[in-house]
C-alpha cells in the first residue's frame, strides 16, 4: 500500500475543500472497496478524507412522497428499512443479494454507487488495463471476459459496473445529490454512470471531488410490485453474471407501466428503455416479454466467453416479469 495521509472531515464544506486542494485525495466511507484496491495498488490516493463522521445518515420520506437516503446509510440498514421494504422491495432485495452480511454492515450508499469494476485485469496491477492505466490496453477483450459487458462497451474497455444497488436505483429513476466547491448539484441515475467510450478511466459523470450527500427515490405508485433477481456463480457472496430489477403495473392483463433495468451487462446499470417502450400497453404475456427483451438486446456485442448473457438476460427478464404479472 502506498503511504497516504489520513484526516477525518468534520463538515461537508471542509471535506469538499480538501479534495479541491488535493485532487489525488479520496473520500473514505466503509472502505470495503477502496481499501482493498489500495492494498492491490489499484488505487493510490495521496490522502483519505474519512466522511463517516459527517451528518449524511437517515432515511426520510419527503412531503412529495420521495424517499431521501443519506449517503452514509449502511447497506444493511437500508435493506431492512420498513419504508424501503414496503415501497421499493426491488431495492431491498438488490441490497440483500450483494456481498455478505459483514460487508453490508460497512458499505455505504455513496461508496456502493462508486464501487469499481471487478474485471480481473483492473484488479491486477501487474497487467495492462485502460481503466487503471489509460493507454495500456484491454486484455479482457481477447482474454477472460465471461463476467464482462455485452452492451455499450468500447474497443478500449468492456468492464461492467458490478453492483446491485445501482441497478435497482436505475429502475426507480433515483436522483443522486452531491456537493462540489461550486455548491450542491444532482444527477439522475440514468446519467450517473457512463459508458467507457474512449475514456474508460472515468466510471461516472460525477464531477471530480464531488461528495455524494444523498440519493432521492421518487414515489412510484407500483413500486410495491417490484423485485430483483440476480444470476451468479454461487448462491451468495458472488457478483452478478446478470441481474434484473423490475417493477410492473398490470391491469386486466395489460401492462400500464413498467421499469426494467439490467445489471452486470454494461459499464452502467442498463435501463431497458426499448423493452419498456414495447411493453407499455401490451398484454403481460411471456411471448411479449421475450420479444421485448430480444429487441433490447439487439445491439448486444458479446465476446465468445460472455455470449451466454444474451439468453441469460432474456430468460431472467421473462421470468421476473412473469412473476410480477402473477403475484
Amino acid at each position, binding site marked *: 500500500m502506498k503511504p497516504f495521509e489520513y484526516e477525518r472531515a468534520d463538515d461537508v464544506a471542509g471535506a469538499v475543500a480538501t479534495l479541491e486542494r488535493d485532487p489525488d485525495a479520496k473520500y473514505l466511507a466503509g472502505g470495503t472497496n477502496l481499501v482493498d484496491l489500495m492494498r492491490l*495498488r489499484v488505487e493510490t490516493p495521496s490522502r483519505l478524507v474519512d466522511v463517516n463522521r459527517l451528518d449524511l445518515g437517515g432515511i426520510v420520506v419527503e412531503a412529495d412522497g420521495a424517499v431521501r437516503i443519506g449517503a452514509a446509510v449502511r447497506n444493511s440498514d437500508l435493506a431492512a428499512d420498513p419504508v424501503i421494504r414496503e415501497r421499493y422491495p426491488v431495492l431491498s432485495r438488490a441490497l440483500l443479494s450483494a456481498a455478505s452480511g459483514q460487508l453490508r454492515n460497512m458499505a455505504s450508499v455513496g461508496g456502493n454507487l462508486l464501487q469499481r469494476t471487478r474485471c480481473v485485469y483492473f*484488479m491486477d496491477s501487474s497487467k495492462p488495463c485502460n481503466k487503471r492505466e489509460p493507454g495500456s490496453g484491454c*486484455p479482457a477483450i481477447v482474454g477472460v471476459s465471461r463476467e464482462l459487458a455485452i452492451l455499450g462497451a468500447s474497443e478500449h474497455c468492456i468492464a461492467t459496473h458490478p453492483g446491485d444497488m445501482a441497478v435497482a436505483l436505475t429502475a426507480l429513476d433515483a436522483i443522486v445529490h452531491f456537493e462540489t466547491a461550486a455548491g450542491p448539484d444532482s444527477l439522475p441515475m440514468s446519467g450517473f454512470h457512463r459508458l467507457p467510450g474512449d475514456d474508460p478511466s472515468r466510471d461516472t459523470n460525477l464531477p471530480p471531488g464531488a461528495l455524494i450527500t444523498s440519493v432521492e427515490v421518487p414515489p412510484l405508485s407500483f413500486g410495491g410490485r417490484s423485485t430483483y433477481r440476480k444470476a451468479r*456463480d454461487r448462491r*451468495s457472496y458472488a457478483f452478478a453474471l446478470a441481474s434484473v430489477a423490475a417493477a410492473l403495473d398490470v391491469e386486466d392483463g395489460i401492462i400500464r407501466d413498467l421499469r426494467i433495468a439490467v445489471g452486470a451487462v454494461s459499464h452502467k446499470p442498463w435501463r431497458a428503455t426499448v423493452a419498456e417502450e414495447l411493453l407499455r400497453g401490451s398484454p403481460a404475456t411471456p411471448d411479449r416479454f421475450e420479444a421485448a427483451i430480444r429487441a433490447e438486446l439487439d445491439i448486444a456485442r458479446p465476446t465468445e466467453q460472455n455470449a451466454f448473457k444474451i439468453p441469460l438476460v432474456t430468460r431472467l427478464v*421473462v421470468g421476473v416479469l412473469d412473476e410480477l404479472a402473477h403475484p
Partner: protein
Amino acid sequence: MSAIGASLARIEGIEKVTGAADYAYETTAEQETLYGWVVQSSIVTGRILDIGVDAVLALPGVVEVVTWRNAPHLEDTGDGELNVLQHAIISYRGQPVAVVIAETLETAREAANVLEVSYSAGESDVLMSPDHLRLYAPDKVNPAFETDSVIGEVDVALADAVTSIDHSYSTPALFNNPMEPHATTAEWQGGRLELVDSTQGSSVTAEQIGALFGIPGEAVHVRAEHVGGGFGSKGSPRPNVPLAAIAAKITGRRVKLAYTRQMMSSLAGYRTPTVSRMRLGADADGRLTAISHEAFSQTSTLFEFAEQTAEATRHMYAAPNRRTTHRLVALDVPTPRWMRAPGECPGMYALESAMDELAAAAGIDPIELRRRNEPERDPELDVPYSSRDLIGCMERGAELFGWAERDPRPAAHIDGRWAIGTGMAASTYPAMAQPSGAVVTAMPDGRYRLGINATDIGTGSRTVMRQIAADALDVEPEAIDIRIADSNLPKASVAGGSSGTASWGWAVTKACRELRISLQTGMTIPPDGITVTATTDAEIAAQEELSRHAFGAQFVEVRVDLDSGEVVVPRMVGVFAAGRIMNPRLARSQFIGAMTMGLGMALHEVGELDTVLGDYANHDFATYHIPACADVKDIRVEWLDEEDTHLSPMGGKGIGEIGIVGAAAAVANAVAHATGIRVRDLPIQPDKLIADLPARF
C-alpha cells in the same frame, strides 16, 4: 471401553477457536523478526534483464533485496520449483524473482510493489489440449504407477459392443486454498536451520530443505504445531520455504514469509486441468466388455508432475478388455501438484459420468449397472480385495436417499421455475500406509509421553493418535501427553494420501505395545521414565499383496433454475465403507468437507486461463468461487461397519480424500437427469446450461 471409535473432541479445539493456537506466521516475537515479501514475474518466459534493487534499498525500513544475483547457491534436488532465485531465466508467470526483506510487513509489501524488474520476454505456451503436439508418455505417473496398462483387445471389444459410449470429460485447473496460506518462519543458528513451517510433513521438509542447502536433514529442525489445512499443497516444500530460508541466511536474522491468497494460484501447486476420453462397451446385459480411459494433463518445465487420472479406473469395474493411458505436456506454467485425491478425483468424475451415460444408453438403472460390473478380484492386479463393499454403500445410500422412487426419464420433473433431478456416483480411494516411527515413555507418575511426527492439518490427527495410544496402552486418553509435528521426533510420513492415521497409528500401536511388554517385566520406572521407540518398516514391507481400497456411493438431488441455469443442490447423501472409523465426530467432518469440496468442483471452481498473459486470471476469493454456506444445504453421511484384517492393526482405510471422489460426477449426473443436458466440462455454471434448458413458457 475402547478409545478408538469414541467421538472425542479435538484436543486443541479450544485453543484454535479462541485464537490461542500459534500458526507458522505467528510463532515468534514481532520485534526480533524481519518480514519477507515475494516479488513475482510478470512475464511468462524469458530472462530478467535488471532489477532496481538500489532504489528499493534506499527506502526506510528495507533491509535487503534478494535476487538471483546475491542469493546463496542451492543444490539441484530435482525439483526446479525449489531452486528459487538461482538464475535470470523465467519459466512461468508468477515465478519468484526476488524477496524484499524489511523491518515491517507493510514496508516489505510496499517495497516489493515498487521494485522495478525489467525483462526480455520469450514465446510461451500455456494451453493444454488432448491434441497438443508435444504430448508425451511419462515414465511413471504419480507417485509410481504404470503410465499405460493394456489388457485384452479393447478396440475389437468396443466395435463388437451392444451398447457403447465415447465421450471426453474435462476438469479445469483447480487451486488449493487451505484457510492458512503457506507460511514459514526461518532462522539460522550457525550451520543449523530452524523452521516453523505450515507443512503436512516436517520430516520430508527437513530432508528436502537440507538437501537444497547441502546440509544433512538433521541440521534442519522443522516444527508445524498447528497447520490450517493443506489438501496436498503442503505435502512437500513449496517455494515459500527456500525463500524464507534464503532471506534468513542473507540477513542473519529471523525472517517470516507468507503467501497472499493471490499467490496461492501460482506458488502452491494446483490440480492440473485434465481431459479424459472415455470409451465403454457393454453386452446386452449391461456387462462391460471394454473400458478405455485415455487421460491428458499438464506439467511445468521445472518439475514433472503426472496426475494419475486413469489409475482409479483400473480397479473399479470388471471388464475383460481394458486400457488406461496417461499423456502429459510440459507447458510454461506453474507446476501442478497434489490436490485432495489427485488422480482419483478428476478420473472418477470422468468414469462415473461415463457410467451414467452408459446406464442411460443401455436403459439400466445406474446402481444396477454398477452391480452387474462388480469384480470378484481386482481386475487389473488380479489379486483379491482386502475388502470391498461398494454394493453395500449403494444399497444403503439408495435407501437413505429414496432412490427407488426415481423416474429415470431426463427433464421429466419440472416444478415451476425449477427442473429437478437426481444422480449417483461411486467413490473410491486406496488404503495406504507408509513406514513411520513413534516414541513413547512411561513416566513414574503413571503418565505417558507420546511422540509421533504426525501433522494435524485440521483433521484431528493429534486427537486420534492419542486415542490409538490409549487403546494400545490400555489407559485413558487423558493419561497421555502427546507431541507431534516436530522433525526431532522419529521420522514419520506426511499427512497425505489419506494414509496418516494408518501410518502413524501403526507406529504408535507398535511402540505402545512394546512398552507394555517392557512394563510387564515388573521393573521400577526410573525418574526419566522408560522409553520405547518403534518403526514399522518391516511390518509395511511384509504386507501381503492385496488390492486395498475404500469405497463409497454418493447421491445428489439438484434443482436447476430454468430462468438462469443456476444449480442448487438441496441434498447430498454419502455412504462409505472405509474400514474401522477411529473417531466418528472427526470422520464426519472429513466426509462432509470433502463432499462440499466436490460440490465446489462440480459447480464453482475454475482457474480461468489467459492464454495471452499466461496465467490464471482469477486468483482471489471474489473471483475464484468455492461453495458458500448458501450452496451447502443438507449433506448426510453414513458409513458401514467394515472389518478388514489386512490393514494396519487399527483396521482403518483412510477417509480424508474419498469424499471428494465421485461427488462431482453425482452432481453432473443429477443435472443431466434434471435438464437433459450433459455437461462434460466442469464446472457446471449457468453459461453451460442456459442456451439449452427446457422452455418454461
